[in-house]
């Protein structure tokens, strides 16, 4: 059986998570977005959501928690895969018995952990800075299922893109549309202020639903009034995120296997040659 590889993979994820707290670059990656978001939300504290007396800062906090989950699940997965394919980490995994299983389990643990750290860094200071948030037992239950389902929905998307893009430096191609999606998914401003067709597109992707799900966790029920259909649309949230999750779980293994099959010493060496040529001098 592959229990050995599952255990090894789990440990791999925990080791990598621990190592991510021990270097400046990773720590910057954890704290920088949180600080930026908290500053932005603090600046939004003064304005209110149209038609209510509710602070835009308080409304944006849960939205950003949701967006962070989706963003982290997808972008981190993609980045890790392309970088580690180029540097040969993946090939090392391929040379081990059940190494790819271990590698993938490790990545899932690492990225889930990183995502969790990221949202804790938003939630903890956020609760002190912003008023009007509703904290009950249901808050944490909703947070948990939206977080887990959100990761299952977005990690495989990142894995698919990470497999398709050979070069870590072509990430921008994916980053731009993702940023555009963040802008149109009702994260910083209620979505119903946008044209209908933009709303339609945004609702196809997980980002909007992650924001909505987190808002339903943290905001008082009265705030559902400013959402589409004046409702938290919990079942729809489950449905859309669940669909992405199923599609991703079917597609990602196929794409990952195809990508991994092509890895060998000479493909890694060729990529190294190319990467070294880019370094001037």
């Amino acid at each position, binding site marked *: 059986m592959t229990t050995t590889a599952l255990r*090894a993979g789990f440990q791999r994820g925990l080791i*990598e998570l621990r190592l991510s707290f021990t270097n400046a670059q990773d720590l910057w990656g954890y704290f920088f977005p949180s600080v930026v978001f908290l500053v932005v939300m603090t600046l939004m504290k003064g304005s209110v959501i149209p038609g209510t007396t509710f602070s835009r800062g308080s409304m944006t906090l849960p939205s950003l928690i949701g967006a962070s989950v989706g963003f982290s699940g997808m972008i981190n997965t993609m980045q890790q895969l392309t970088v580690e394919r180029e540097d040969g980490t993946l090939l090392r995994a391929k*040379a081990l*018995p059940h190494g790819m299983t271990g590698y993938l389990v490790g990545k899932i643990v690492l990225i889930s952990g990183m995502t969790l750290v990221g949202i804790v860094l938003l939630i903890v200071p956020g609760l002190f800075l912003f008023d009007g948030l509703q904290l009950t037992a249901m808050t944490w239950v909703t947070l948990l299922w939206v977080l887990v389902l959100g990761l299952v929905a977005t990690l495989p998307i990142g894995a698919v893109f990470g497999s398709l893009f050979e070069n870590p430096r072509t990430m921008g191609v994916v980053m731009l549309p993702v940023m555009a999606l963040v802008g149109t998914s009702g994260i910083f401003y209620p979505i119903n202020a946008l044209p209908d067709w933009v709303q339609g597109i945004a609702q196809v992707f997980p980002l909007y639903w992650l924001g909505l799900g987190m808002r339903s966790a943290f905001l008082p029920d009265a705030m559902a009034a400013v959402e589409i259909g004046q409702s938290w649309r919990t079942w729809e949230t489950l449905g859309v995120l669940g669909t992405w999750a199923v599609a991703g779980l079917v597609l990602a293994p196929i794409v990952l296997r195809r990508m991994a099959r092509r890895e060998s*010493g000479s493909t890694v060496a060729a990529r190294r040659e190319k990467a070294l040529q880019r370094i001037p001098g």
Partner: protein
Amino acid sequence: MTALSQVSTRPPEPPVGEPVLDVRDLRMRYGTNDVLNGVTFTAAPGEVLALLGPNGAGKTTTIEILEGFRMRSAGEVRVLGVDPARGTEAWRARLGIVLQSWRDHGKWHVRELLAHLGSYYTEHRRPWDVDELIAAVGLTSHAHKRVGRLSGGQRRRLDVAIGIVGRPELLFLDEPTAGFDPEARREFHDLVHRLADESDTTILLTTHDLDEAEKLADRILILAGGTIIANGSAEALSREMSTDAEVRWTRDGQRYVHSTTEATKYVRELFAQYDDEIEDLEVRRASLEDTYMALLRKFEGSAR
């Protein structure tokens, strides 16, 4: 020291039981370009084989097919009795592959990484004890260093350690000492000898260093134009090519050098004629380099 003492210390043993590597008529074609057109060789358990050949001869392609990392176009291949294209994970656990690392696992610590990678093997076989392994590759004083902080030579030793952590029955080394300084190279050679002699590991290595091939390998395979053009010990190849040996001596304070294919006979005649006057006698067998160049020239001549 005369060149004679460089002759392989381990005479090629007759194959016992099933060969570890059994390659027959292996072919590889990329598009319309035939990279391998009929490679055939075997390796017996515990044998050390060096695969030599000019760049682009197909050495890496051959190794990657045997490792199960690349599909072949045609031919019969058995690695540890299994077709590598259909190798299971249990089969993979019996192989060791020394990869050329670059900057993977840079944040990991040496000992932590080896312990982790070893843990994948536990269901199949007993991996090396981590501290013993670290000592065997001479990294004890760097065991708690980050991988990214190691020097080039230290990283290559870590690569070897990763390759052998599962105590493989068959080890692949693709240009293992590229970029080594002479001391690191010597230490690496000792390690390979120990693996082959003590653990009975079968080793297939590629190298451009003919001196290294001669020191390490029981048998040398020369790959050119997509086929094996020579297969045998360094001595046997040199005999086969009847390359000249060099006889050097001093008489009356003067140095003499003579090239001959029949060194023994020549030396006997030399003593018959001058007896005591001969001093500093040295007989140097043709180096592998001479033989290698002669073989390639002959191959290129016949290919034309």
